[in-house]
C-alpha cells in the first residue's frame, strides 16, 4: 500500500496542517517508506490474534461515581484567550 500526494494533502487538511509543496513531497516519501516497513507484517499469519488496543497488558481501572471536582472556572478562564460572561469566546463559527 502506498499513499499519493493528494491523499497526504487530504490527511494534512483533516489535521489542519499547512504543508508546502516541498513538505508534501518529502512527507509522502517518508510516509510511504514507513508503510512499506509496516507492510512486512502482512507476511505473518494473524488469524485468531486479537488486535492490540493498548501496548500494556493491563485493564482499565474504574472510578466510583462521585463528584470531587469543584468549580475552578475562574482560574481556567484566566488563561483563556477571550471570555465573555462565564463563556469561552471563539471566532464566530457559522454552521
Amino acid at each position: 500500500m502506498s499513499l499519493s500526494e493528494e491523499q497526504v494533502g487530504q490527511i494534512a487538511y483533516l489535521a489542519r496542517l499547512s504543508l508546502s509543496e516541498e513538505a508534501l513531497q518529502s512527507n509522502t516519501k517518508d510516509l510511504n517508506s514507513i508503510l512499506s516497513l509496516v507492510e512486512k507484517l502482512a507476511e505473518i499469519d494473524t488469524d485468531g490474534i486479537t488486535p492490540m488496543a493498548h501496548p500494556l497488558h493491563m485493564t482499565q481501572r474504574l472510578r466510583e461515581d462521585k463528584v470531587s471536582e469543584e468549580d475552578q472556572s475562574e482560574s481556567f478562564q484566566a488563561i483563556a484567550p477571550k471570555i465573555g460572561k462565564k463563556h469561552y469566546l471563539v471566532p464566530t463559527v457559522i454552521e
Partner: protein
Amino acid sequence: MEWETVIGLEIHAQLNTKSKIFSAAATKFGAEPNSQACAVDLGLPGVLPVLNKEVVSKAVKFGLAVDAHINQRNVFDRKNYFYPDLPKGYQISQLDWPIVGEGEIEITLGDTTKVVGITRAHLEEDAGKSIHDLYDDFTAVDLNRAGIPLLEIVSDPDMRSAKEAVAYAKKIHTLVQYLEICDGNMQEGSFRCDANVSIRPMGQEKLGTRAELKNINSFKFLERAINLEVERQQDILEEGGKVAQETRLYDAVKHETRSMRSKEEANDYRYFPDPDLLPVEISDELMAQIKQELPELPQEKKARFIAEFGLSEYDADVLTSQKPMADYFEKMIVNNADHAKLCANWIMGELSASLNKHQLELVDAPITADNLSLLVNRIGDDTISGKIAKDVFKAMWDGEGSADEIIEAKGLKQMTDIGAIEVIVDEIIANNAPQVEQFKSGNEKILGFFVGQAMKATQGKANPKLLNEMLRAKLS
C-alpha cells in the same frame, strides 16, 4: 412508482450519573456556564481520563434488557474532528469494540408486533455547547456538557415508516427510564434521536442512498421530519435525480430540513484506540451483580398486571408504557386490589385527561396515588356514584382536600335509603303520565328520562343501580 421507506435510528441516551464519564465534575442540568467543566473536560495538558464505574453498569443494564451480547472486553477510541466545543480535538467514543453488541426489541403498532434489531450500543462523551447568537462577533462555548456520559444506541435499518420509527424510539425511551439509566428528558437533550432515512423501489433489495436527519427533539418532530425527508427523496428520484449522502438539520419552526455541508467533507474521523485509556474488562462478578440489580422490565410488568390484576392487554399496555404511570398504578393498587380495573380506568381516563389539559407530567399531578385510591374506594363501596366521583375528582384536583373530606363537606354521599328514593320515584311517575304510557308501549329509551329526573331531584346522589331497578319494577 411505489417506494419503500427504510429507516434506522441512532439514539443518544444521556446516562444519569452524578459525575462525568471520565472526570469527577458534576453533571447537573442548568448550572452556570463552565462551572462544571474541570481540567479533564477542558483537555488541559497532563490530564488523564478515568472511566466511571456507573457508566459501565448502566450500559450493561441496557444491553441485558435488549438481549444483547455484552462485550466484557471493550475499547475506547478517539474520533477526531475540530470544533470549538470539542476542546481536545477528539471525542472519546467506541468503534470496533463497543460495550453492547447485537440485540433486539419488540415494537407494537396497532395489532401487529415487529422485532427491530439493535446493531450495537456504545459509550461516548458528549461535546460542549456552542451558542452562536449570544455575541455578534463570537461564538460562545459552554463546556458543562463536555464529558457527560452518552450511550449511543444504533438500530438496524428495520423500520419501514415514520410511525414504526416513532414506536421504536418510544420503546427505547420507556426502557431506559425503567432501567433508571436515563431521565428521558427530551427538552433538556437527555434523549436525542438521529434518523437515517432512505427510499428504494418496492421489492428492490439494495438500499438507497440515505440522508441523516439531526436536531430532532420530540417524537412528533421525528415523525414529521422523516415524512418530510421521504417526500423530498421521492421528488428527487422521480425527477431522475440522485439523493446525496449527507447530514440534514431539521427545522421545526419552518418545517424543513436543510443540508449541513460542513459535516460532509470532514467525514473522515480517523478513529484509533485511545492510548490514555486501557481496554475495559468487565468481570464476571460485576456482570452477575448488574444482572441481579436489573429491575422489572416493561414486558414483564405488563404480563404481571394481566395475570395478577386481571387487566386487559390494552390497559396493561397503556399503564406500563410509561414508568411513572405504572408506578402510580401500583401505589393505587396497594389498598385497592379488588378494584384494579377501576383504578386503571381512572388513571387512563380522568387523571390523564386532566394532566393533558393542564400540560402536566404525572409526577407533578396534584392528586397523589393514595388519594386517588381512596376516591376509587368510595366508588367501590357505593359511598358515591362514578358520576359524583368526577366532581369529587375535580375538587381534589383544585386542592379542596381528600376524597372523604370533600364528600363530607359537600354532602355527596350516595342515597341508598330505599324508602327515600321510592318517595321520589313515585312522585316522578305520578307527574309524568305521558312518559309512563310511552314506556309501557315499548319505548325502552324513555327510562333514561326517569333516571334523569330522579337524579335531578337527588342532585345526582341516588344510587344508579338501585334507581334503575326500582324504576323498571314500578313502570312495568
